[in-house]
């Protein structure tokens, strides 16, 4: 058994090799490499497949009760400072490895169909592989520095992949926004790591936790300062897991190709924040004020995301806000001390959200056949409807995902969400209330999404809606450019050309109705549907195998006897908690049915009645506008002012000095006599006075 642990480093290295090989091929023999499409795809997919098999072997071995395995090498040293890097395989790592490799594998299979017509097909696989490698490196990291390294690397991959269609202006803006926002979080994380190292002299999670606790107890470190350090570290997850106030990058990140949204911006990378909180749990749990900050940040984000998702018309943006909201649940669970519940939701969410995103990709793929390669048209739900008839597999799997996220038993989301709600009720009923309300909103907006996409009549041929969407887009762009910057007609002429992305997409669209996606896309959907239905059963409250396996370090959890409900299990409590969350979910679904399926209630009328609230949600609580005004324009103005100072004052003094010298030089010309002794005298005098001056004082 030892043998698979010794070679566990291969898991991140295999995809890295694939990415390097393709990357080198693209740089040195660009044309040729682009030709070998299926070869490079098969190569990359089989590498991640091998990593997946390996991960399953490790999980199995960990389930057998194999102890934690750690291997380190010295990475950097200076004097008595030594920094080690390596990998560690424990229960949490094993579970994360399996989640990441399975989702990555399925997404890569799916990519073959989705990106089939894209000229950047091979490059896309190289990036995907590079991302998988960094993500796998992140989950096996044994210390904070290594986590930080891979943390930034996954951020870089996300940057490259969001900007994959780099000729689209929106993608170019979005990738920069994502990277910079994440850097703000990393700024906090870096400071937190440094501060904790300063306080405890270690980068290892448990050592930091222990020493921090004893420092606080002995009074050497005030608990306020400890909380401050912990919150600095938490800033990292805030950015990466799209928590308020650093959530703004995630919805924009949907400019990347849909497989990326599924893999990076739903299932794996954004969950890295939750993973880091789990790893830092030994530190956080001794700092109660930090824990409550975490819990409330999560709760607020959950609500914020859900409240914005209600009014989104872009199917991917809607899912993005939903991801943000679900991540809020996980963070809230962590903050409430429910370590197992948070990670359980991470796992179930990874599967059903990846499936939902891939489903939305399948829908977009189908819609593109009708409306063309224009994200404004192909992703808007107002043009969809009735797709169930044309794309049955996509519809059924999407419905499963919708049921799972809405918390309907026995789908996966029910068990994990219910556990979070239960734990947060125990921690603070106010937290529970926020989570409970959000659960209702979630069910509502997800069914709104399902109904307007797959039920009713197909609206894709409706020219009036298309025109309206185009006008809205122009208005948005007009706002971005500033009023009067450009003649709208001019934009109209240019916009379609720009938004087409690559011209190689060809003119094979404009069929009248969408079609079901190819098997490479539907098979991953079906494969993901299975865990979305069943995986919740490993963590039912009466037989919680998940929590028995994944629990905070140091906490002893008794092993469960197989398939037996413990005698002291409180059915009553479970039924009340579970029942109420199912109840509010059903209310949300009923509302969605009346508004979007049977059209008993007119959503537009409601929107008109609560106009301010509707606008608040539609405009994402105006957070982006505020940031734009304060940070983006503010920093630009500041930078320009600094440059002015540099140019006019700092450099101005120099030029002035030059000018004065020129003038006085003209005068001095008559003093200089060209005798070397005279100059030597001056130098000698200067030296002498320096020596004397120092000697006397």
């Amino acid at each position: 058994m030892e043998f698979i642990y010794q070679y566990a480093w291969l898991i991140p290295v295999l995809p890295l090799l694939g990415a390097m090989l393709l990357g080198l091929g693209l740089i040195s023999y660009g044309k040729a490499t682009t030709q070998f499409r299926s070869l490079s795809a098969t190569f990359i997919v089989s590498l991640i497949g091998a990593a997946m098999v390996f991960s399953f072997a490790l999980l199995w071995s960990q389930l057998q009760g194999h102890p934690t395995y750690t291997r380190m090498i010295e990475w950097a040293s200076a004097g008595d400072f030594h920094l080690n890097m390596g990998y560690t395989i424990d229960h949490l790592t094993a579970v994360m490895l399996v989640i990441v490799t399975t989702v990555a594998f399925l997404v890569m299979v799916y990519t073959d169909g989705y990106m089939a017509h894209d000229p950047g097909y091979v490059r896309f696989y190289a990036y995907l592989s590079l991302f998988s490698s960094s993500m796998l490196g992140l989950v096996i990291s044994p210390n904070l520095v290594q986590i930080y390294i891979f943390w930034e690397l996954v951020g870089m991959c996300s940057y490259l992949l969001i900007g994959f269609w780099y000729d689209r202006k929106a993608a170019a803006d979005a990738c920069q926004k994502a990277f910079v926002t994440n850097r703000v979080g990393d700024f906090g994380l870096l400071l937190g790591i440094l501060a904790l190292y300063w306080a405890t002299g270690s980068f290892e999670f448990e050592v930091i936790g222990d020493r921090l606790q004893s420092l606080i107890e002995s009074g050497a470190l005030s608990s306020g300062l400890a909380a401050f350090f912990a919150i600095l570290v938490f800033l990292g997850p805030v950015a990466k897991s799209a928590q308020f106030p650093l959530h703004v990058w995630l919805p924009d990140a949907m400019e990347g190709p849909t497989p990326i949204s599924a893999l990076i911006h739903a299932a794996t990378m954004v969950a890295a924040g939750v993973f880091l909180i789990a790893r830092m749990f030994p530190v956080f749990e001794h700092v109660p004020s930090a824990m409550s900050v975490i819990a409330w940040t999560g709760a607020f984000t959950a609500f914020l995301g859900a409240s914005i998702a209600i009014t989104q018309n872009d199917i991917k943006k809607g899912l993005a806000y939903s991801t943000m909201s679900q991540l809020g649940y996980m963070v809230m669970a962590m903050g409430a001390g429910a370590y197992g519940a948070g990670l359980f939701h991470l796992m179930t969410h990874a599967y059903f959200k990846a499936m939902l995103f891939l489903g939305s990709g399948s829908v977009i793929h189908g819609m593109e056949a009708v409306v063309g390669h224009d994200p404004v048209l192909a992703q808007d739900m107002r043009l969809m409807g009735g797709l169930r008839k044309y794309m049955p597999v996509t519809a059924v799997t999407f419905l499963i995902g919708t049921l799972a996220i809405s918390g309907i038993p026995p789908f996966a989301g029910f068990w994990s969400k219910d556990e979070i709600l239960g734990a947060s009720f125990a921690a603070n009923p106010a937290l529970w209330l926020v989570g409970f309300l959000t659960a209702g909103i979630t069910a509502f907006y997800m069914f709104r999404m399902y109904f307007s996409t797959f039920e009713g009549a197909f609206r894709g041929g409706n020219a009036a809606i298309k025109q309206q969407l185009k006008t809205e887009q122009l208005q948005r762009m007009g706002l971005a450019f500033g009023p009067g910057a450009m003649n709208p007609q001019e934009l109209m002429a240019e916009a379609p050309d720009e938004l087409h992305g690559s011209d190689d997409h060809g003119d094979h669209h404009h069929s009248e109705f969408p079609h079901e996606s190819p098997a490479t896309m539907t098979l991953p959907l079906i494969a993901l549907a299975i865990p979305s239905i069943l995986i919740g059963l490993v963590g039912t409250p009466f037989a919680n195998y998940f929590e028995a396996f994944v629990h905070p370090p140091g906490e002893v959890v008794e092993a469960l006897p197989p398939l037996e409900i413990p005698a002291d299990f409180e059915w009553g409590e479970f039924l009340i908690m579970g029942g109420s969350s199912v109840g509010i979910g059903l209310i949300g679904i009923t509302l969605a049915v009346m508004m979007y399926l049977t059209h008993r209630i007119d959503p537009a009328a409601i929107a008109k009645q609560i106009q301010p609230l509707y606008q608040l949600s539609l405009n994402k609580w105006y957070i982006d506008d505020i940031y734009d005004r304060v940070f983006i324009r503010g920093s630009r103005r500041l930078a320009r002012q600094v440059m002015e100072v540099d140019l006019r004052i700092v450099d101005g003094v120099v030029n002035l000095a030059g000018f004065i010298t020129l003038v006085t030089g003209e005068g001095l010309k008559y003093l200089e006599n060209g005798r070397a002794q005279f100059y030597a005298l001056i130098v000698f005098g200067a030296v002498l006075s320096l020596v004397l001056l120092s000697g006397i004082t």
Partner: protein
Amino acid sequence: MNTANFPWLTTVILFPIVASLLIPFIPDKEGKTIRWYALIIGLIDFAILSYAFYTQYDLSNPGMQLVESYTWVPSLDLKWSVGADGLSMPLILLTGFISTLAILASWPVTLKPKLFYFLMLAMYGGQIGVFAVQDMLLFFLMWELELIPVYLLLSIWGGKKRLYAATKFILYTAGGSLFILVAALAMAFYGDTVTFDMRSLMAKDFPLQFQLLTYAAFLIAYAVKLPIFPLHTWLPDAHGEATAPVHMLLAGILLKMGGYALIRMNVEMLPDAHVYFAPILVILGVVNIIYAALTSFAQRNLKRKIAYSSISHMGFVLIGMASFTNLGLSGAMLQMVSHGLIGASLFFLVGATYDRTHTLILDEMGGVGKQMPKIFAMFTACSLASLALPGMSGFVAELMVFVGFATSDAYSFTFKLITIVLAAVGVILTPIYLLSMLREIFYGPENKELTSHEVLVDAEPREVFIIACLLIPIIGIGFYPKLITQLYDSKTLQITDSVQNSLTTREERKANPEVLQAERSPAIGES
């Protein structure tokens, strides 16, 4: 032949200079033979110096190695004495590496090729000389000599404002080096014996006031070179006008001379004064980081943007130097080597982009990524390296500086906190200006105005090769930093011990001021 006694360093310095003198006699009108000649000389020299260090240099020895000393002008006590230790050895290697690549990068130069390559080879030797010499007077001479080729390279092959830039450069640096001369002479004539030898100077016991004055003089001189705010304004002009190969030398090597000399003279020779000046260095370092990053963000000219980013990165060298920890000093050294590689690669790519777009103004570019995917990819990789992405050398250097400073015991908690927070703001600002630069050059829809009158060809193999040569060590160090840090670890440890000693002495002096009086009185008697 006994290789141990062979004058390796003298050979390495003189070989390119002698070879450059032969250039006028090579019959070549178009400059094609000359460039191969120069490249081969560069390669041979780099090979010699690598071999010399590989066989003769002992990593565990912190002292001066490969020492040679010949009396040159006996009446002035001027000696040709060279040597290498942990501080200079990595930088000499870097010099050989970057200069050779710079010669390869000057392939497209067609104007007066003979003079150009003559100057490049002369620079090659001169730069190694600056890092290798062990005599103060000789150091000053080398420092001045290397200015002349730069001046000519700037003023003949530069851009539109080249004369202004070149004059500014020479006035600034020459003005700065006056301070070196004065301070060096003062140090040499102080006390009983007159000597210019660095090791003998180090052994001299200077009183604190004298140390403070000479420290200040050196600081001004090297602040021009590094550069440190507010003496930095020659750099954007010089960089803005230089051609790509000269650029690579300026950013890759010349800036490092400032950092090297600061560590060699200010920190190593004047440790007592360093204790007093260190907080100032830290503050200047922070100002450098933030001020230059903001200016870079506002710049619309590509070359000036990257030039300011160099200034910003040099701030970390200052902070590391002033941290009084081995880790910090080690990080400062690594930052110099790392920036030498990254800066050279970025400037080379700017030059390559300019060769195609014929503009440096960002507003006139846009969407060229489609036609130049290789340049796009390389530019992205080098920008990511510059913004300290983990896995590349810049990250390790900055991390070491940060951790070193955080664990320093020389400063109060509040001072450290503020410094680290402000320096870390640079971590946010760097990606802002670098990524928006990438966005404005490569991303977005194609700029029709540009593509209509410029033929945008993608990178040729020579260019890919140069970038690959630079990226391999960048990534190599990023993955395994001990590759470089082990080269100088013993030396930085020694320096840190000595400054730590000075630090404790000062603490003791603070505790009982009489000691200070007692120490000072014999100093008056001496002078």
